[in-house]
């Protein structure tokens, strides 16, 4: 007894020729797709049974990935438009059927179908979405011309059916021009309204948090004193909240400034220190790296040995990037460097020297100031 391999489920793939029905059947039944198509075509000749079966399968066979857009290899709308043009040629035969010129109804229906297809199907098809508006405009234009011709014919030859059909065609054609524009505009307006509502909601939340939580955090810091543990936590929370509230609205935010603020926030979490960062001018990300690393060392130094309030001032001029880190600690003599400071001082001064800049440390009774300077090249980049 041989094991029967499980059949793949009957599913239509998102990348199809027309509908994916034949391909799905072929895969499910494990037969060549040509055979399946041949059988469907043969059935179609039996009073249209194949067409019915095809339409039924198209409607009921589920798609493999319902959320993926279907991409069709056949340009359906263009083919419909071509067929409409061919049908219109029959008008030249001047034959009548039910009081209408032969081919007029078919041509109008095919062109209308082309318009509907571009709007309903092709707009979501990545392969045809780009060309869909052009096809739609052509089909609409075709309908208007066809309708005009039919109406003229109807009035001239007193065929009321032709006149009515012609007028309807003109209307449908004009709708093909106008309706998508209206729909598009309405969709865009709805989107704008939604975006405005989101912005307003966000700014309302921001205003509320600003008036309540930020105030409270400020009061906590104020009550607890700059160097205390509670103030440190409140300060860190305040920065985090403020960054979220005012993301992107800070007029000073250059890359170096952002980097320095991040460093400051990290250190505030680890040490009992309050770091204020003031930045002037704009700095590119690349050139700020060595400076940011040196400033970080200076800040770690200040946070460990001084604590309390520390000010960072960064200024970018065309000539140089300069950063000053100032603390209010007891200070030390940079000439007689204690052991603990040796590595830190080396990592600041040495690092800046390697990057082509300078660093100086001045210390006195009322605090220590580290001055980091990196000259910029004439083209604006770092030296």
């Amino acid at each position, binding site marked *: 007894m041989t094991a029967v391999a499980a059949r793949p489920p009957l599913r239509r793939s998102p990348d199809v020729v027309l509908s994916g029905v034949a391909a799905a059947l072929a895969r499910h039944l494990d037969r060549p797709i040509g055979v399946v198509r041949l059988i469907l075509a043969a059935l179609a000749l039996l009073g249209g049974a194949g067409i019915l079966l095809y339409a039924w399968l198209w409607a009921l066979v589920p798609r493999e990935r319902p959320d993926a857009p279907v991409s069709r290899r056949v340009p359906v709308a263009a083919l419909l438009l071509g067929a409409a043009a061919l049908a219109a040629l029959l008008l030249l035969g001047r034959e009548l059927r039910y009081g209408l010129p032969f081919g007029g109804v078919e041509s109008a229906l095919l062109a209308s179908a082309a318009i509907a297809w571009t709007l309903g199907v092709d707009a979501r098809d990545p392969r045809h979405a780009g060309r869909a508006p052009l096809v739609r405009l052509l089909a609409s234009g075709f309908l208007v011309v066809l309708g005009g011709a039919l109406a003229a014919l109807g009035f001239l030859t007193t065929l009321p059916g032709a006149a009515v059909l012609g007028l309807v065609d003109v209307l449908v054609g004009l709708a093909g021009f106008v309706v998508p524009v209206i729909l598009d505009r309405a969709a865009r307006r709805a989107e704008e309204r939604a975006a405005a509502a989101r912005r307003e909601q966000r700014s309302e939340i921001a205003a509320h948090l*600003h*008036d309540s939580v*930020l*105030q*409270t955090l*400020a*009061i906590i*810091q*104020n*009550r607890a*004193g*700059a160097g205390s543990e509670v103030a440190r936590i409140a*300060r860190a929370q305040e920065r985090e909240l*403020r960054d979220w509230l*005012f993301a992107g*609205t*800070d*007029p*000073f935010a250059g890359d170096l400034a952002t980097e320095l603020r991040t460093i400051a926030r990290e250190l505030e979490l680890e040490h009992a220190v*309050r770091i*204020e960062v*003031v*930045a*002037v*001018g704009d700095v590119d990300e690349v050139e700020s790296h060595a400076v940011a690393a040196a400033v970080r060392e200076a800040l770690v130094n200040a946070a460990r040995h001084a604590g309390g*309030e*520390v*000010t960072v*001032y960064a*200024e*970018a*001029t*065309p*000539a140089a990037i300069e950063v*000053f880190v*100032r603390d209010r600690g007891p200070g030390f003599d940079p000439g007689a460097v204690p052991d603990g400071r040796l590595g830190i001082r080396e990592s600041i001064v040495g690092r800046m020297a390697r990057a082509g800049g300078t660093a100086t440390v001045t210390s006195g009774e*009322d605090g220590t*100031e580290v001055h980091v300077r990196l000259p910029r090249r004439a083209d604006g980049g770092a030296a």
Partner: protein
Amino acid sequence: MTRVLLVDDHSIFRSGLRADLREAVEVVGEAADVDAAVRAIAELRPEVVLLDVHLPGGAGGGGAEVVRRSADLLGEVRFLALSVSDSAEDVVGVIRAGARGYITKASSGQQVADAIRTVAAGDAVFSPRLAGFVLDAFGAAGGGAVAAADDELDRLSAREQEVMRLIARGYAYKEVATRLYISIKTVETRVSSVLRKLQLSSRHELTAWALERRLL
């Protein structure tokens, strides 16, 4: 003692501040919104109004609206802006309206008392952040733009830039004076003249910036 009016919509903050300042100044009253503040200023005529930048009431203009509506008293009443956020747009509006300085709410009681005394004496109070903004707004980092004369409104003189830089670096007025070998009075004069430029300048960047944020 300096007569001070506290204007802030948070009663906890007001009472905390009142307790902090008890030794240093005389708190003559409190107000919690724009209209109450304008009334209290007209009635009590305090020397200094400690003014929250974000205030409810009135036409929604916050602290700046209080200053504008009390404009005819600006000679006698001085405003010191208090803000919870040290973002420039919060502060510059109220400074441009006529306030003499700005400090953050995280400042200690001692710092607030010092700032009140400075403002009461007719001088200006700049935080490092505000000094940084001034340097940016007047294009100090751009290099060339230095005022030849001190009374030029749209640019800072070299001395003013020097003072602003040191304040931005966290120096107190006294330290700035020591560092530059000038008197504290000179430092205060320069800061006041920068404040005047900040209030009166029609410098393009500053105005455009303020307009964009609807501060003018």
